[in-house]
């Protein structure tokens, strides 16, 4: 089985390498877009981080003073901490839920298609709309709890630091679990049925099959989905901006929000650019780290099958 599967694969790869000279131009459109809308603005931001600019007047060179100000500001470690907290918690909530839902939706149970439609609804809404809706529902005076006279729901959801963070993690998860479930569903469907048949012949039950076949086979999907979650959580902005605006105080002020507030509310484009550069570096480091964790991407997943 292994040898049969692998030969055509390697043959394909080598033929790609051989022809890469003639097809390199195919990367040009993507490269041009990346340079124009990714690299150039990034260089612009790097340049701005060494200047003093209020967004209105002339730009003045400022040397490394912005970097010194931001790096010595106690607001930075706080914003980093909040960002990582949101990242970790939302990963920890989303991954198991999305995995289980994905496996469930890949199966052939009754009503599966109908339920799947319901799961996907949050994916169809914009973050701002979701945030406005939750803000209204969670309002301690006019919200769901007050309307139904349920004291359990009548908390100061967005007014207490720990609760507000919890609400953000919950809403983020609610919004993105459908997306990740979709990824897992696709991946589960690609696992060869022969593996399950072999396992069934060996007498493995549902739980054992899940832990010994499904989960190992989804390794790369877990890494892909986690990368999307982790790097994506660095840029959470709209949802938090509408829900809490970083509050109460600065309890939910993540890096992206800190950047916006410094740049567009306090008119300090220089320090805001420093934060933008830090965001890029953190995102790159995390993406690389996750790739490392996944091991070599060329290793076959079919080994032992």
């Amino acid at each position, binding site marked *: 089985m292994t040898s049969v599967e692998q030969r055509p694969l390697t043959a394909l790869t080598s033929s790609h390498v051989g022809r890469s000279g003639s097809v390199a131009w195919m990367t040009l459109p993507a490269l041009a877009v990346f340079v124009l809308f990714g690299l150039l603005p990034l260089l612009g931001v790097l340049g701005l981080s060494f200047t003093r600019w209020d*967004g*209105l007047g002339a730009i003045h060179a400022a040397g490394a003073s912005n970097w010194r100000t931001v790096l010595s500001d106690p607001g930075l470690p706080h914003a980093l901490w909040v960002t990582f907290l949101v990242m970790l918690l939302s990963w920890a909530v989303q991954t198991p839920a999305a995995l289980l839902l994905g496996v469930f939706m890949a199966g052939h149970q009754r009503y599966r298609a109908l339920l799947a439609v319901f799961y996907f609804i949050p994916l169809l809404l914009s973050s701002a709309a979701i945030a406005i809706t939750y803000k209204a529902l969670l*309002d301690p005076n006019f919200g769901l709890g007050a309307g139904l006279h349920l004291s359990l729901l009548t908390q100061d959801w967005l007014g207490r630091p720990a609760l507000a963070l919890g609400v953000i993690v919950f809403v983020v998860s609610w919004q993105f679990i459908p997306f990740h479930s979709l990824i897992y569903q696709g991946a589960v469907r690609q696992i060869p049925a022969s593996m399950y048949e072999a396992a069934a012949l060996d007498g493995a039950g549902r739980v054992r099959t899940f832990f010994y076949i499904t989960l190992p086979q989804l390794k790369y999907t877990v890494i892909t989905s986690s990368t999307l979650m982790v790097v994506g959580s660095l840029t959470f902005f709209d949802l938090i901006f509408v829900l809490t605006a970083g509050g109460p105080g600065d309890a939910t002020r993540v890096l992206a929000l800190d950047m916006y507030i410094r740049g*567009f509310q306090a*008119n300090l484009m220089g320090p805001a650019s420093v934060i933008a550069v830090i965001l890029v570096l953190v995102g790159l480091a995390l993406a690389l780290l996750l790739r490392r964790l996944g091991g070599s991407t060329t290793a076959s997943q079919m080994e032992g099958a």
Partner: protein
Amino acid sequence: MVGLGVPTALALSACSSSGPSQTGAGGGTGGSGKGGTSYWFLTGQPQQGIREDTVNRFNKANAKTQIKFTEFQNDAFKQKIKTAIGAGQGPTLIWGWGGGGLKSYVDADQVVEMTSFFDENPDVKDKIFPSAFGAATVNGKLYAMPIETTTPIVFYWNKKLFDQIGAEPPQSWGDILDLVPKFNAKGIAPFSLGGQSRWTSMMWLEFLFDRIGGPEVFQNIFDGQADAWKQPAALKALAETQKLVNADGFVKGFSSITADSNADQALLYTGKAAMMVHGAWTYGSMKADGGDFVTGGDLGYMNFPPVDGGSGDPDDTVGNPGQYVSISSKASKEQQDVAKKFLATTMLDDTEVKKWIDSGNIPVVKSAGDQLSSVTDKNDAAWLSFVYDTASKAPTFAQSWDQALPPTAAETLLDNIAKLFQLSISPDQFADNMNKVTAT
């Protein structure tokens, strides 16, 4: 590039505006395209309707020179206008609050000096309250025309709730602190507050600073004195604020309530909160949204009461002496001329002045006082003469701090105010953080 900014802005304003959508030439049907004269202002009734009406009347009378308006929500506007102006995509007519924000436009050479405009149109200058020109002046020169209304911050209360617990409106800060436990015991929030907007909480500090130490306390800060936030009166005012927060003086969840949604006003007129410190502009919206709350005479109002032992004059007030409109220096000569014609002929004309008065506001014109006698509605008449007296008789009418200070210091101020109300920093820490940005 010109086309890029405008459609987005239009789309956004269409989402956020709950009032009537753009009418007449507002939709850009005037055929003027990107060369036309543009005007950006705020949503929120009844002000929005009056602003639209003034532009529409000008457009009707001047078929060839149309002004196109775009509307924004308050907090969104503050950032959008700065970004647009910085990118050279700003409107011809720039609406604002004067003060520090206007100064940053002047420093960046983005607005035209209007001294000659007022020289050419002396009757325009003559009809406006002299006190309103302060925040339009930068480095001794005029850069904006005061428009719309003068809106002091007012102490409101719900008369029904006071009757319910048998209490009288507070005559002093001590009375306020005494009232708090009485309302809390009945399950009524003492004060409504839209704390997430932050400038709402700031109004408390503005009054307490003034009542405890007089207008000099903030003047010293504004003048950039070192350690000005550590003046004894300032520290006492900050401590008194936290005392009120600690006593549960503000409605539960105040730090997640925004003023843009008018939820803070709703708390007062639905009887969930007994008192509120808020701008005079909320009278109109409470009248419109609050059922028979205002028309039934349940809304009480007065100037902020004195603090026992304080040296401030209890007739002082704070707020917005006016709104302001400037002309973009990046606009073409043609656009600037249309804008000037609009300001000279239609802005603050008799029709608009009457509409402001009918909506329960005092416009920034001297003739407003004479027109009050023609108001037939008993509640409106009493309200209007109260606002007129408060504004015109105040020994000091201080501009809102976040408008008076430069934008960078204002943002630090609002940030620290949120933390002060959250009790996450002490008055001392607040003063240290603020001294760093306001001392020059």
